[in-house]
């Protein structure tokens, strides 16, 4: 059996959510890796947008920032933050691929602050482009660590709205119709959202993980359907592509 790390597995599972011939806006870190992996495997015509303004680049080696020169390498167009987010605002970005410190049962994301906003316990970076991508793209894919603290019933601060308080809440708030969280990928499982209740539901557990383990490590009542499958392990092809993308193991580990 092939050996792989938890991060490699997450990257592979994440990459499977992306379709060929679609546009994805990716954030720093694992989302970037997953996008590049999809391009090298099942989605060669997947188009990546980076928020600083680069459109469809040919990323030559792992970038450090979503705005650095690697991310704009051989792009077909160079624009800016407004240019990217306006493209999203008019419905051209299919997938937003975001990370978050906390994600709740409605897919709301916190990346701003733990504790009181004005005298915080932990100050996090803030929205960056996450709120913009998450508000304006059709489908938001979220990557997070899986434990009770990171997946609470309610995030302490909604940096990027998911389904907010449930069905209809996004539309009522004024967000574009038909948008919202789509998938959540953690180190334990792949999850989606229940169409009726907008609550997070389990889709598959990663190889070697049990449904009970997932439940125990989730801070809210996760919907468990009858047909929970097992996430596909990364293939040899995917693992070798990952090592090409991040040869120094900066994100996927050594």
């Amino acid at each position, binding site marked *: 059996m092939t050996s792989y790390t938890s991060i490699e597995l997450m990257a592979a599972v994440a990459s499977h959510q992306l379709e060929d011939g679609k546009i994805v806006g990716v954030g720093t870190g694992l989302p970037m890796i997953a996008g590049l992996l999809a391009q090298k495997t099942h989605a060669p015509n997947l188009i990546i947008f980076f928020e600083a303004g680069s459109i469809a680049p040919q990323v030559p080696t792992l970038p450090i920032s979503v705005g650095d020169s690697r991310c704009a390498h051989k792009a077909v167009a160079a624009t800016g933050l407004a240019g990217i987010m306006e493209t999203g605002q008019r419905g051209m970005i299919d997938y937003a691929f975001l990370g978050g410190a906390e994600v709740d049962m409605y897919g709301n994301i916190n990346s701003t602050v733990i504790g009181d906003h004005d005298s915080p316990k932990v100050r996090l970076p803030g929205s960056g482009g996450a709120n913009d991508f998450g508000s304006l793209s059709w489908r938001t894919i979220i990557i997070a660590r899986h434990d009770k603290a990171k997946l609470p019933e309610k995030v302490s601060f909604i940096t*990027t709205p998911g389904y907010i308080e449930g069905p209809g809440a996004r539309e009522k708030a004024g967000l574009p119709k038909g948008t919202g969280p789509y998938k959540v990928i953690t180190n334990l499982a792949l999850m989606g959202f229940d169409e009726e209740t907008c609550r997070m539901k389990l889709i598959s557990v990663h190889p070697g993980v049990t449904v009970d383990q997932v439940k125990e490590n989730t801070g809210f009542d996760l919907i468990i359907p009858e047909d929970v499958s097992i996430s596909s392990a990364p293939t040899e092809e995917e693992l070798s592509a990952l090592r090409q993308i991040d040869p120094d193991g900066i994100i996927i580990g050594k």
Partner: protein
Amino acid sequence: MLRKGQGELLSSCTVDEIRDWNRKHKLRGLVDKVTTVSSAVEKYVKDGTYLAIGGFGHIRISMPLIYEIVRQRVKHLRVSGHTAVHDLDVLIAGDCVDAVDVAYAFAYETRGLSKNGRRAVESGRIKCVEWTNASLSWRIKAAAMGLPFLPARNLLGSDTFEYSAAKEMECPFTGQKLVALPALMPDVSIIHVHYADKYGNCSIRGTTVKDDDLAKASKRVIVTAERIVPDTFFRDNPERTTIPYFCVDAVIEAPHGSHPGNMPHEYYFDESHIRGYLKAGANEGSLQEYLDKWVYSVKDFDEYLDLVGSKKLKELRQLEELR
């Protein structure tokens, strides 16, 4: 009921004020604006200035101007933090900053959080108003367009909105709920570019982030450029003018001016320098040692580059060119 964010509007001039400012203070003619870093900072960056920085936090940032602001010990800055990274962090290290319009700050992307930045916020030294990258870009664009606000469809339904100074509004045509983003007109912007002429025409290679709009939105604009070129550079290909000269108040030639940041097509990050800085940020003592060595003990950016060393500068160029 239309909601409004409870955050403070850190910059308060109106479009009529900016029209009057532009009428009285911005030069229209083609005038030589080449100056020095120290005199530009002395002239334009005062205690309490609302400052915006071009580039993307650690990419295409004007380090000569940032170091000089620290060196001149300017205080009580309010700063626009659309993907602020090393630029803001060094200003915080120099205790220059009171408040930040945060979209992204106090962190270094894949390198993780900055202890210095976090300490400043968690101790209450720095006040934060929340925004997003697009919100700040559109606020700047509103000012660049001469408008008091721009509508948008982000921010709604979030706590980011609640801690911003945005307002909800209804579309006059469709009745749909929108967010109204107030124009942001920085007192001073500092922007590092690839090419500038002596009049202030500028050309940026790669992504502009928001610097075309930023130059138009700001009361004063100080530009550092990798190279000063003759104006024929622009007149022969006017499509490549990212910033027209009349936006710009001061021009300084500053090769390697984004070090230790990345400058697209010129040089990549000086990763060991940045990691050294982040390590120094673990406590105030080591951070002050860093500033002593790299800022206070050098007279200017030329001396700083000597400290970095020609060998390192060459390596960073090779790294950028993927050699």
